[in-house]
């Protein structure tokens, strides 16, 4: 077993060797610009792009012509939100999203608010689920778009896409789904779920970084968006810029592999994730699961280890790559806004660790991780004044702390 062990597959994934192999010729031999219409280099590149477009579309049950390539999911989210808001502004100025969406959606919504649009941020319950009645009640005759993610990147909770899509359709509102984490890891079908726009990216499904897609529905209804990038009219004018051919080919291959192996692979990943959770909670007490127990991304495990601060945990399990919702690991010095939205106390948010199990993890790695987590939590609790107080039966909340 090689260390460090990579268990941060929500941040990014290792590129599958089969994907790398598919990409390589497009750096050297077949390096043409897909927009070159008058020579073989261009034709070869264009053909490769169109094949990949079909593969990427198939992963979400879309047609190839409905997929626009972007630089990644952040760009796709920006293009969807800004593009719909601007194009439909005569119809309405209202967008609905949720407090636990990714910053690519939330920051874009904030920018739109500065431009005069109105945004409703749905609250979530303690598991990270929205209330569908609240969603429906938030819709007004000025609402143009609902933007909700497939799977949450921190806590793994899934939004009920089919139900959301049905509500959106019933009220004639467009539904944008940030499917970045969910795609390949749960069933996403744009027809069945009435999704009108979807953002996703290659590097979360064992493809390369720097290449993403935006699905834009072409019929029933035909969705129009105002572009955010201009210059040459590539991608049917929706997204100008020379196509990243090797990236697109890699995205296509990654999508093809996901479509073929996803269902079996997700079962294996879920079993490893459950093994990790059970192994840890069997050995140590005061461990809390963040997010929904069942309705959740198969590889996601987000745990709070009470009385132990997240960054010191990461330092202890230094041969394992995971991430924490602790303020100390973020630039802002604020603990995770997602955990806060769930009503997890700041003390437990500081104690949270996100494990992301993926394709290349093994049982041996999971067992090693369990041992290291158990050792480290025990060691850090032995030096934690909070654990000592809890052992003495003191309620930590009863103490008058001096917040600084």
């Amino acid at each position, binding site marked *: 077993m090689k260390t460090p062990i990579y268990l941060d597959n929500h941040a990014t994934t290792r590129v599958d060797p089969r994907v790398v192999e598919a990409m390589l010729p497009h750096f050297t031999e077949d390096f043409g610009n897909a927009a070159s219409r008058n020579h073989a280099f261009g034709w070869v590149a264009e053909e490769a792009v169109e094949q990949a477009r079909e593969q990427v579309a198939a992963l979400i049950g879309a047609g190839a012509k409905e997929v626009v390539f972007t630089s990644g999911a952040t760009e796709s989210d920006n293009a969807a939100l800004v593009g719909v808001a601007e194009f439909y502004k005569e119809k309405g100025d209202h967008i609905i999203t949720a407090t636990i969406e990714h910053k690519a959606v939330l920051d874009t919504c904030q920018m739109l608010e500065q431009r005069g649009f109105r945004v409703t941020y749905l609250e979530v319950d303690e598991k990270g689920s929205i209330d569908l009645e609240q969603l429906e009640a938030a819709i007004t005759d000025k609402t143009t778009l609902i933007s909700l993610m497939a799977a949450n990147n921190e806590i793994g909770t899934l939004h009920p896409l089919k139900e959301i899509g049905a509500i959106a359709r019933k009220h004639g509102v467009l539904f944008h789904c940030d499917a970045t984490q969910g795609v390949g890891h749960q069933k996403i079908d744009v027809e069945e779920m009435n999704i009108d726009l979807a953002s996703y990216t290659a590097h979360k499904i064992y493809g390369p970084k720097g290449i993403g897609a935006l699905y834009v529905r072409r019929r029933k209804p035909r969705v129009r968006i105002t572009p955010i990038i201009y210059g040459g009219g590539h991608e049917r004018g929706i997204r100008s810029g020379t196509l990243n051919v090797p990236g697109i080919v890699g995205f296509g291959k990654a999508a093809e592999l996901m479509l073929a192996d996803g269902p079996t692979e997700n079962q294996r990943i879920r079993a490893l994730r459950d093994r990790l959770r059970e192994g840890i909670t069997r050995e140590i007490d005061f461990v809390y699961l963040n997010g929904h127990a069942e309705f959740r991304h198969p590889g996601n495990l987000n745990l709070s280890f009470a009385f132990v*601060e997240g*960054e010191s945990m990461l*330092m202890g399990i230094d041969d394992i790559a995971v991430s924490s919702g602790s303020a100390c690991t973020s630039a802002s010095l604020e603990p995770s806004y997602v955990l806060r939205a769930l009503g997890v106390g*700041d003390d437990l948010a500081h104690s949270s660790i996100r494990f992301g199990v993926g394709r290349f993890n093994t049982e041996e790695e999971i067992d090693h991780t369990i041992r290291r987590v158990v050792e480290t939590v025990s060691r850090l609790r032995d030096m934690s*004044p*909070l654990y000592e107080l809890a052992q003495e039966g003191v309620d930590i909340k009863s103490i008058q*702390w001096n*917040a*600084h």
Partner: protein
Amino acid sequence: MAYSKKVIDHYNNPRNVGSLDKQDDSVGTGLVGAPECGDVMKLQIRVEDDHIVDAKFKTFGCGSAIASSSLATEWVKGKTLDEAMEIRNVDIVEELSLPPVKIHCSVLAEDAIKTAINDYKSKHGQAG
């Protein structure tokens, strides 16, 4: 974030972890910070003839917080109360090469020392 060697050393081999009896007259206890801020330090000193003869700590916090409090216990041992009052957070920052975002850890350690000394003094009828 990369940690300095000294932070890693204190994290891996913390000095003086433990507790003293806070009811004991010769012991001063400082409990500072807050769980919701992500760091709480408990620093205790045992005082004989105005000298700190023993010190223990327990810390909930990041590696730099653990290192700052571990270092603080090392530094106060053997000092008189007045000498220990002179320890400044900037000395801790310098010794551990703490980056700017971790300066609050050293501030907390200085607070912990002062709170423990004041607790001892108040037990003995001296103004804090």
